[in-house]
Structures are given as C-alpha cells and as structure tokens.
C-alpha cells in the first residue's frame, strides 16, 4: 500500500509533542533526557521523510540523520555522566534540586 508523507509526519508530531510535554512536566532528570531524545528522534524522522519524498535523488537528509544520531549518542553519554555526578552531589535526580545556575 502506498503511504503518503502524512503517515510519517503525524507520528513525528506526536513524538515531538510528547517530548515537549515530558520535558516540561517531569521532575526526574532521566525522564527529561528521554523526552529530549524523543524530540530529537522526531526531528530526525522529519529529515528522512522530507528527503525521501521531496528530494528522492539526493542523500543529504539521510546522511544528516546518521550524523545527528551519532552526536545524540555522544551527547546522551555526557548528559548521563552529568546526571550521575549531580546524583553523587545532591543525593537525588530531581531537576528542582539544581537551581543554582542563575543570575
């Protein structure tokens, strides 16, 4: 069956909205990180979809997505390292317990 672009974009939007909602409402930093990954993956999905449907002859969107996934992996590693360090310092992973980085 022939799938139109919309079949891909609607799940992407849902993923992105879930990510935003999760990022704003959850208190656990790990949950925040997961929400972040959701948003990132929805963006990656968009790249691939637009590349596939609008510019089938070129490969930029695909390559860029691979690139973004690689960077996301590294970034996740750093984020988890930071979270582990915060846990050691304050004893929990509540986002509201680290509010000292301000004016």
């Amino acid at each position, binding site marked *: 069956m022939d799938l139109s672009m919309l079949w891909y974009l609607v799940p992407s939007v849902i993923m992105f909205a879930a990510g*935003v909602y999760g*990022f704003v409402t959850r208190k656990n930093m790990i949950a925040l990180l997961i929400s972040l990954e959701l948003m990132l993956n929805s963006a990656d999905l968009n790249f691939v979809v637009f590349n596939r449907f609008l510019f089938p002859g070129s490969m930029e969107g695909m390559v860029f997505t691979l690139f973004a996934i690689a960077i996301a992996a590294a970034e996740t590693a750093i984020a988890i390292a930071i979270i582990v360090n915060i846990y050691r310092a304050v004893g929990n992973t509540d986002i509201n317990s680290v509010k000292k980085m301000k004016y």
Partner: protein
Amino acid sequence: MDITLPILILALPFTMFLILGIGGVKMSRKLAGVLGICGNGALLAMAYTVAFTYFFSGNPEFIADGIRQQVQLFDVTWLAFTERMVVNIGFLLDPISAMMLIVITTISFMVHLYSWGYMEHEPGFQRYYAFLSLFTFSMLGLVVATNIFQMYIFWELVGVSSYLLIGFFYKLPSAVSASKKAFIVTRFADLFMLIGILVLSYFVAQTPADGPLGGASAFNFLMLNSESSNVLASTIGATFLGGSVLTWAMILIFVGGMGKSAMMPLHIWLPDAMEGPTPVSALIHAATMVVAGVYLVARFFPLYLIVPDSLTFITVVGAITAFYAAVVACCQIDIKRILAFSTISQIAFMMVSLGVARPELHDGLGYMASMFHLFTHAMFKALLFLGAGALIHAVHSNNYTEMGGMRKYMPITHWTFLIGCLAIAGIFPLSGFWSKDEMLSAMYANNWIWGAWMTMVAGLTAFYMFRMYFRVFWWEENPHYKEHRPHDAPWQMSLPLIFLAIVSIFSGFIPFGEFVTWNREPYHIHIEMQVAVTSIVVALIAIAFAGWLYLKKNDKPARMKAALPGLWTAANRRFYWDEIYMFVTHKIIFNGICKAIAWFDRHIIDGTMDALAAMTQFFSVRIKGMQNGSVQTYVLWYFFGAVLLAVITWICLL
C-alpha cells in the same frame, strides 16, 4: 664636479651617527671619541675640498663671466606623489651653501675635539657623539638643500637633534623641560612655515605645468629664485589684510626662521636651551642651527625682493629683538645666558642687515654683510661659548658671582675670551669690526633710523660683553679658589680656543664680498670711515663704562641696581616673556579653551556612552529574575517563543 665627495659629505656623518648610536654601548669612551673626531676630521677635509674647489678653482662650471654659478651637483627624485608634488634630494653648491659648509664643519670639528675634554666624565659620552654626528648631518643637509621640501625635512631634523642634545642630561628636570620647550616652540613656528610653503605652492600651481616650475622642479630653489621675478610676480593679484598673498607667504616662511633663530616673540626657548652641555650650545645654539633662519631668508632672498614689505617686516622684527636681547643680556648673572641673549641680539643684527638689503643700495650690501657677520659671528661666538665652558668646567658654576679674578688662574681662557669679546664688540682690526661695519653701512644706506638704532645695540653689545669679561676675569678673586684652585683646561679644550681665537682675529680680512653677494657678482668691500669711526667710538665708550663699573670690586653696580630696581628686575626676568607665555598657555588656552573642550568631552561625548551603559544596566537588573535556574521554565519560554514566531510567520504568509 664629481659627485662622490658631495654624497660622502652627507653620508659620512649619518653613518657615524648609526655606528656610534647603535654600537656606542659596546664601545669604550676613547674609541667613541676617536671615531667621532676622526670621522668629523675627514668630513672637514671633504667639505673644505668642495668649498675651496668651488671658490678658487675658477672652473667655468662654478664661475662664468665673473658671476659665481649655482650648481646642483646632484638632484634625485626621492618621493613622487603626483606629477607636480615631487620631493627631491640633492646637493646645491652656491656661495652661501659653500660658506656654510666651511662654518658648520669647522665649528663641528672644534666642538668634537673640545667635547673630548669637556664631556670626559659624563655618562652617555658615546650617545653624545652620536647626537653630534646626527646634528652635523642634518645641518649639512639643510644648507645644501635643492628645494623647499628637502630644506623642511632637514629643518625638522636639526630641531630633533637640538632637542636630543639640550635634553642630554635627561636626569635633570630643568634640562628635560628646556628640551621640550625648545622643540615645542620651534615646532610651533615651523607650522607657520609649512603654511607659508603651502601658500607658495598655490602660486606655483598657477604657473603652466610645462613651464620652469612644472614637474619635479616645482619647489626647486634655483627655479623659484631665477624665474620668480617673471613667473611668480605676475601672479600677485589677491591681497589679504593689506598685503599681497605672496607677501604673506614669505612672512609665514620667515616665521619658521623666527622660531629657529629665536627672534622675538619666539625667542623664549634659546636661553633655556643653555641647559644642554656647553659645547652643544657653542655648536647648535650659537654658530650653526640658530642662524638657519638667516640662511632661510638669504636662500629665498630673490623672492623676498619681489615683496619688499616682507623685508621691512624682517627688519622691524630684527631691530626690536636685537635691542631687547641686548638689554636683557646686561642684567643676567648666568654667563651662558648672557651669551645666549648676545646670540639672539647678533642674529637679529643679521636679520636687520638682510631686511635692509636692496639691489639699488650699495649693490645689495646688506646681504653680503649679513652672511659675513654670520661667518665671523659663528667663529667668535663659538669661541666665547667654549671659553665659558672652560670657566664652568673650572669652577663648576654658571654664575659669574662664583667667579672673578680668573685671569691669573686661566691665562689661555682669559686671552682667548678677551679676543672673542673684542671681536664681538667690533674693535678694529678683529673680525667683528669688519662685518659689523658692513652691516651698519647697509643700514645707514637704507634709512638712518636703522643705522642709529643698531649702532646703539652695538654699543650695548660691547657693554654687556665687557661687563661679563671684567666681572669674570677681574673684579675680585673668589675666596673659594683657595680650596679648589681653578686651572686651564686640557689641550683638547685649549686647542679649539686658540684656533678659534686666531680665526676671530684674522677672518675679518677675508675679502668676503668677492665670494658671497646677493647676485653672486664680486663686490669690493670698502670701509666707510664715518660709520666705522662712530661704531668704534661707541664700542670704546661702552667698554670704558663697563670697565669703570666692573674692573675692581666696588659698590657702583649695586648702587645702579638699587637706583633702578624695577628696570633691573624686569631685565633680569627677561621682561617677563616667559611669564606672559605661561599666562597665555595656562590661563587662557588651558583654562579657557581647553577646559571648555574637556568639559564637552567629559560630559557630552562620555555622557552619551555612559547613558547607553546605564540604560542597559537598568533594564538588565529589571529582567534578570527570568534567569531563575529552572531549566524547565527556560524550555517553556523557548517553546512559547517558537510558537509565537510560527504564528507570526503563518499570519504573514496568509
């Protein structure tokens, strides 16, 4: 003439400057001194060769039909900005530049030799010799300049070397301020000279581009002077404040000369310049650099003749300065200051003599007399300064109050100093008599007022010189001599004194008119008995008066001072010129104009910037609460912002 020697004359002192300036720190004093003296001796020999070849060889290149020629031995393009704005560097040989070559190298050599003894124990001996070489280079470059720009460049260079040498004892605050004063005052005068050159360049631009003043020769002295009578004279049309613009240009150029030659009211730097080492005063501030102004007027003389008003201006400035400086010299205590004011007065004499010169009066005698006096004055004034240096070296003070009765202790200094005093007083048959007589004849020929006025100044000259002479060498012995017995200087210092004394006696017999005249044709000097007798009688009366006052210790000078305390103090304080300058600069310029400008800068310019910063700070304090440390709040703000942008974009696209 082969151009090797002329190039070497400029290159050698500059090379010496580089060698002594860069390598001086690694040299011993003796090596630096010997290098400096030998280099200068070679320079002396070369300059004499060139000058004597010019005057005596009879080569048709130099003298044709009895007229001495102006020869450009070389003239190369140095900077070409536009087609008509070209700066050349060259070597112009004509009577006055050849004469100056002799004067500069002679005095410079004598001073190099003398300094070997005088500066022996001073720190920075090598630096001193480097600066002397720099000065010699600049002065030679100035006198052989082929065009205005070359002259202007070297004009500033002599100013710089004068500044460096006045401030040689840079640990003394007085020397530092004197050097700054000298530089600022002469530089201020040079500003007017530059304006004059620019005005002149306007006239040059009016002449056809393919004419005599086109291309690279736009500012060439030969072209300006020879063609000026028909090319530039025809362009005199516009007038400004009662004088033609060319008159103003020539007066402005002369103002530059006023600064260098210490004419009133720009004389204030020269007495302070005496803070430099005494041999420097002899070389720069008596014999060579300060006569650059006279040389400048002589160089432009044909142009000045087109506009005689400017010559009258020069005469008036010179006459006032000569009298003023002579009066001030009568009331100074520092012997170098007496000589400094004497120098101002004598240079003013030369200026008056140039100012009264007209071709129709005695064949332009004033020009020849002025150059003659420049020559003889350089010799005897250098002698007097070097003699004063020997005195200062012996008693370690500049003031005559520390001296007295020195004739027994320093016979060589005494006799040479006496010769110098007699020469400057104009006593027959010493050199000063001949040149002063020619100048006075020229002044009487122009107008008896100038003659009478300057005869009076000549009398004052004799008085103040012999006042100093009697006070230093006669009067009463200073009791301090018992503890510290003064004695004659070493041979390096005595030899120049003796040589210059001999020159001062005999140089008057040089038939100067055969060599240097305004139109370069020979002029046969003859003594005008009336003028000569008058000036000798006036000088003798002045000397007798000085002797009556100062030969033996007595209270007559003190009583005279007490009788006219106001006049004495005023003259001693140089008629308050320095105070007037201080008042004008500090009270009027600094307090009035500069304060207003400073207020504008501080309040308007700075205020605008301060207000911008204050506004930024004001708003940042108000909104800094938004940065509360909660990452989720930031994300919300960001999200709403992005949505807002999206909505705006959507609305726009509708």
